[in-house]
């Protein structure tokens, strides 16, 4: 399941974590563990939510913790959520760190490597 929801790839010196499907109370903890075990490096991290179809408060908490974990490792983080998408709707609703948000992976990597 986790493997289906989490995919990690290195791009232009950054680690890009792509998440897929619904992230909710049923699997948020699992996703969090999956990402943290997949990424060891303290380089820039991009969490791509473009493939996420549903994100609830548990998913938000998961994002919170991931960002906190990477920041503690001195790894800069960006979260990709396309404008007008379901996830962006949730993040906007709750007022999720606007500075960390990007609309595309490209934009995020460029921001991190600038």
């Amino acid at each position: 399941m986790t493997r289906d929801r989490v995919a990690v790839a290195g791009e232009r010196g950054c680690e890009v974590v792509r998440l897929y499907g619904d992230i909710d109370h049923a699997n948020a903890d699992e996703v969090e563990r999956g990402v943290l075990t997949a990424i060891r490096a303290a380089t820039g991290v991009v969490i791509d939510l473009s493939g996420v179809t549903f994100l609830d408060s548990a998913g938000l908490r998961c994002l919170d913790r991931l960002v906190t974990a990477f920041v503690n490792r001195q790894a800069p983080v960006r979260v990709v959520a396309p404008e007008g998408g379901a996830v962006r709707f949730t993040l906007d609703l709750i007022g999720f760190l606007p500075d960390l948000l990007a609309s595309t992976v490209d934009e995020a990597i460029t921001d991190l490597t600038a």
Partner: protein
Amino acid sequence: MVDPVPPPDWFAPLLEESAEDLYERATCGYLSVLPDGTVARVNQTFLDWIGRRREDLVGRPVQALFTVGSRIFHETHLRPLLHMQGEVREVAMEFRRADGGRLHTLVNAVLRRNPGSGSTVLRLTVFDATDRRAYERELLDERRRAELVAARLRVLQEMVARCAAIERAEEIVAPIVVAATAAFEATATMVWLLDPEEAVLTVAGGADGSAVVPAAPIALDGPEWEARAVRTGEVVVSDRSRPDRRVVTPLVADDRVLGAVSVDLPEARALATDEVNLMRTLGQQAGQALERVRLYEETTRRAWQSAFLARLGRDLDEPVGSADRARRLVELLVPDLAEYAQVDLAATDPDGRSDPPTGPDDGVIASGTPRPWLLGDDVRDAVRDAGRSGRALPLAAPDGRRGVVLPLLARTVVIGTLLLVEAPDPTGRAEPDFLLDLADRAGLALDNARLAEQDREVARTLQRSLLAGERPTDSRFHVVTVYRPAGETLEVGGDWYDAFTTSSGSIGVVVGDVVGRGLRAASAMGQLRSAVRALGKAGCSPAAVLRHMDDFVATLEAGQMTTLAYAELSLDTGVLRYACAGHPPPLLLPPGTEPRYLWEGRSGPLGTRAASRTRQQAELTLARGSRLLLYTDGLVERRGERIDQGLGRLVDVLGKRRDAPLAALAEEVSDAMLEGEGGHDDTCLLALAFDGAPRFRRDVPAGMAELAPLRAALDEWLTGCQVPESERYGIVLATSEAVANAIEHGCGGDPAGRVSVTATLDGDVLDLRVSDTGRWLPPRASLHRGRGMALMGRLMDDLVVDRGGGTNVLMRRRVGRRAT
């Protein structure tokens, strides 16, 4: 000395006697005494009386002739009186005779003075008073004896009077002690009572000086006088050769010996016959009093016992459940019959047969105080034995308290035990036979309650299963039901409702009322409900349904006089066909106008001969948005109110809530109609909304894995209701958060917990309800949960969290809908 009177001639020969001879042979004695107390002269009569010679007296002091008493009397009374008065008449004097006997006399004494010399002579005239003296003494003795007899009779009478006033057997002691003390100056009196079964005499009481003497029991065949008196039924006294202080009389009543009274005299002596008779009479009178008071006690005890049993029967009938009855039982027994009472009911197996109780810890459902009985193994064993043997069993606790265990019998089966501890029992009320009788009655009452409980449980289960049938779902209508069981009785009634789709695509609704309560009514209701459903589903018109039901009821044992209202609504055309069999009329609430009753299509209850055999039905077309209420008479009937007043009230109540959502409307109408009513009848209400709000409902186990499928289903329903995608996501998100909350905090991870989600779309208002059945656990991660709540709050217009018997989250949101 004496001047001779000239005698008449005819008795002259008799008078040829000298004055000397008259003096010497007079019928009285003459004594002349000189001032120095010596006898100067004495006549022969006196000398003959005292048997002395003249020379023995003359010149000797007269005092020597007196007895000691007379001498003292002479010195202290006679002489002073003579000195003052000169003479004394008829004084009693005693002279000593020569043979040592006494001469009782009456004496006249005159002091004669010689005027010349001034010397005096005392002249005594002595009359023999021996006979008179004896007579007087006899009189005196007779009087003394009469006085004694009277005094003793008075003592007896007083004792009888005091005995007549007593009400308890032990009170007999005091009057007996008083009587014995008064009649015999007894120094000790003891009352012994015979215990015929044990053949012993035991002390009922007594008095030794001032103290009550404890004494060991006496065997009936023993040598003691008390035992002899009881054996022989006769007074036992000492014989003259060996006087004794003790006297014993039996307590006798009608030839039966009840005990004995022993009296100790102040000194050892033989009793006179009349004293023996007195003792016997005392024993008889006291015995009869004792017998009477025993009869009185017995009568009082029986009266008390039968009154107690009557009260027990009455009071035990009031509580409905067996546990409540057991509780009432011990309340009744304490403190009148026991200081502590405890009921142990046997466990009941599913077949309804009871096992003997295996120990007091299994199903002790009631107990009385004040001092709880500390149960030990011995009690446990005794309880078990009593349960098996079906008899009363005495018990002694280690702390010295005494108890008795009685079997609670019902129809020869031991259904439990009753433990009574340390009955305060001065009057012997709690005798074993009575207690067994009491336990039998209590057992029957408890068993009846238990059987009734089983019947009720079966009926309730049946009713629940019948009422919880599957409901048709269709977005074009909406049905809600309210069922309120009667509050006054625990027995289920025969009210029912049902809703189903018919073969022609209509929706059929019915509300019915079977006469009666309990298992019979509930099972008849089940059959009737199935029959109506079968007929309606087959496409029968309302009148045809009623006709067939008449035939069906004719084959049933129960169900006659059943009333019902059946209506069938075509969802395509809005045509409503309905028929009422003796049932209150349906109430129609058309959109925008006042409610009105549907008074047509009426005919009599099912299975009645008197009612019209022609089943009527009526037809009308409902506007979309109309609501229809079917109900049973419990809703509109109130004590002291006419039925038309109740119907008027229903219109008022409904009119005020016409715009409320259907579910709320049904609940509120029921509440308002039944407010202040004790709930003497079951009430059933079915509300049908035509073109009612589309409705979504899911009931899922409390697991997070359910979230995704639930979201998909809700999204699909929203899509079907033409809710735009942009709004759908928020609604689904808020719902998902609420359900996750319910799973996490409401059910607390209990896998058996369930969460239900209901969504209705009434116009452009979406109502969402998420309910769980669990107890709310305070959330641990407040930020996380706060976020969930924040999401829900921002996504919905209204958010209400209602905790109490599970948590309800109510959310409302206005949605934009695409025009259809």
